[in-house]
């Protein structure tokens, strides 16, 4: 099942709705890398609240998304990792270093806004 990607001003928001196959995740990765260019987005939020398992493959793909989007000049933040899922990831030994995460969508948006401000120097205030 394809993950819907919403454009909200200069951000893209991908909300995962249900358990995903590996192919769905890879498709999401490619769609995001593509759309960031098409819409000239500055940030991407991937909402994984609905995922009840984040195994090594899914974690690796989320990390790949974050790196790819960075190479495309934008920021990614993964939001909504559930407490049980976080526990299982730690037990499994998954390192999620240098992948930005936030509690939920709201926090994710705040994170991206803050990054935007940091990236703008003096004169270019506001959007």
């Amino acid at each position: 099942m394809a993950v819907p990607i919403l454009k909200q001003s200069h951000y893209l928001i991908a909300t995962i709705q249900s358990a995903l196959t590996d192919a769905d995740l890879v498709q999401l990765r490619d769609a995001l890398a593509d759309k960031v260019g098409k819409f000239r987005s500055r940030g991407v939020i991937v909402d994984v609240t609905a995922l009840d398992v984040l195994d090594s493959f899914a974690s690796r793909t989320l990390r790949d998304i974050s790196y790819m989007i960075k190479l495309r000049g934008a920021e990614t933040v993964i939001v909504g990792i559930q407490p049980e899922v976080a526990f299982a990831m730690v037990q499994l030994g998954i390192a999620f270093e240098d992948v930005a995460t936030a509690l939920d969508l709201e926090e994710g948006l705040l994170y991206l806004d803050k990054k935007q401000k940091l990236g703008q120097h003096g004169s270019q205030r506001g959007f």
Partner: protein
Amino acid sequence: MAASVGFEAETEFCIAVNSDNDLVAARRKGRVLAEQIGFSGSEATLVATAISELARNIVSYAGRGEILLSTVGNGSSIGITVIARDQGPGIADTRRVLEHGYSTSGGLGLGLPGVRRIMDEFDIISAPGLGTTITVTKWKRR
């Protein structure tokens, strides 16, 4: 379902694993079974995660195989046993594949060591040409 004590292998599920599409169903069955016998959400997630890693290895290295799920009791505890088995190429050095970071596919090599950490019991039987059977059990915390 009453969690009866003192019996072996109660409920059995056999899930054919032929492609990554089958992982979703295998994980879900594992979670359902775990919750049925009273595992916490957190323990059920660990079981589902272990199933995912074992099933993915089947798809990646053997192409096809199966996952068997059963509940087990040993008198005072109840748990879940997951058997992942395939008739793929097998593993020559079964100790090596349990080392964190060992991978023949450019992966992170954390699947098997991670599963071993997540589950309470871990057993691997494999030899080149004979396929691989990995049996893991997680006991319910009381």
